[in-house]
């Protein structure tokens, strides 16, 4: 440390930066943290994994569906693999990882979607 020496020019610049920080940094607003409460519904979602072939690769899609209102859902493409078997294996791991409910008690049935057969 003894050999580290900041010359006066650099030190003055450092002090300027510290001073400027006061005028450029602002406290965030409460709305900045809204994403936390906006995402709370994800705690009550069942995770459905799906492996889809696209452009010669197998994509892992995870669907997060609310267990009481299954039509409230989001779909995320997680990753892609050239091998279906590898994609399925990883999809299972991803599903386990993503599920907030590790015991798997939150489930969504196909019937819950009230799909029309015709």
């Amino acid at each position: 440390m003894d050999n580290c020496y900041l010359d006066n020019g650099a030190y003055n610049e450092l002090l300027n930066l510290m001073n400027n920080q006061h005028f450029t940094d602002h406290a965030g607003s409460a709305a900045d943290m809204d994403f936390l409460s906006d995402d709370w519904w994800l705690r009550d979602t069942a995770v459905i994994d799906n492996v889809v072939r696209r452009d010669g690769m197998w994509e892992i899609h995870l669907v997060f569906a609310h267990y009481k209102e299954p039509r409230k859902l989001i779909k995320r493409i997680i990753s892609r693999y050239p091998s279906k078997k590898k994609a399925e294996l990883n999809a299972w791991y991803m599903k386990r990882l993503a599920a907030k409910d590790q015991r798997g008690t939150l489930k969504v049935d196909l019937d819950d979607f009230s799909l029309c057969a015709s």
Partner: protein
Amino acid sequence: MADLSTKQKILNASIRLFNENGMANVRLQQIANDIGISAGNLAYHFRNKEAIVEAINEDLYQETSQILSYYRLFPNLMDFDNQLNQYFRFIQKYPFYFLDLLEIERHYPEIRSKRQLHIEKMISQVRKRFDFNRQRGLIVEEPRPGVYDDVANAIWVLITFWVPQNQVRGTEATLKTCEFKEMIWNQMFPYFTEKGIAEFDQLIRPLLERHSSDN
């Protein structure tokens, strides 16, 4: 562990004797007598006075570095006041560092060179405080170019020569935090805007009055 303890005792006694008698007037035998060990035992830990001075110098350097780190911890005038408290504690702990300034300059190049490293930084910090508070609207625009540089230098002089000037004037008994800080704040006060005076009255004046009653 016993070695460390004896070493620390030697350093503490040395600082106390340097403060009381001046660096040049303290002999190794005095230090040894002060803590009740033989001169040989002392020489086992520190081969000579220069070695003791070197060890103290390391503490001095660390402590002054620490004081310099007290910059922009508070977003208001409290920041400087807080740093002034640290300077005053340092002055009280090591008066010999200021009283024997010329002795150190001449005979202890190690202390001198480390002190030099901090002088410009001390002055720069005070100068940048003017810029910072001017941007906050607490201090007026510089009346003439260079005025704030001079005030920053004057404040450094006050801090550095606070102890010697008190000794020369025979006013050691009045070494009070409030007087020290007030004299320094008074260098800045004429340049305060109304907003600056209001913040000073709200944050700093009560502290100065409290120190005054404590002393």
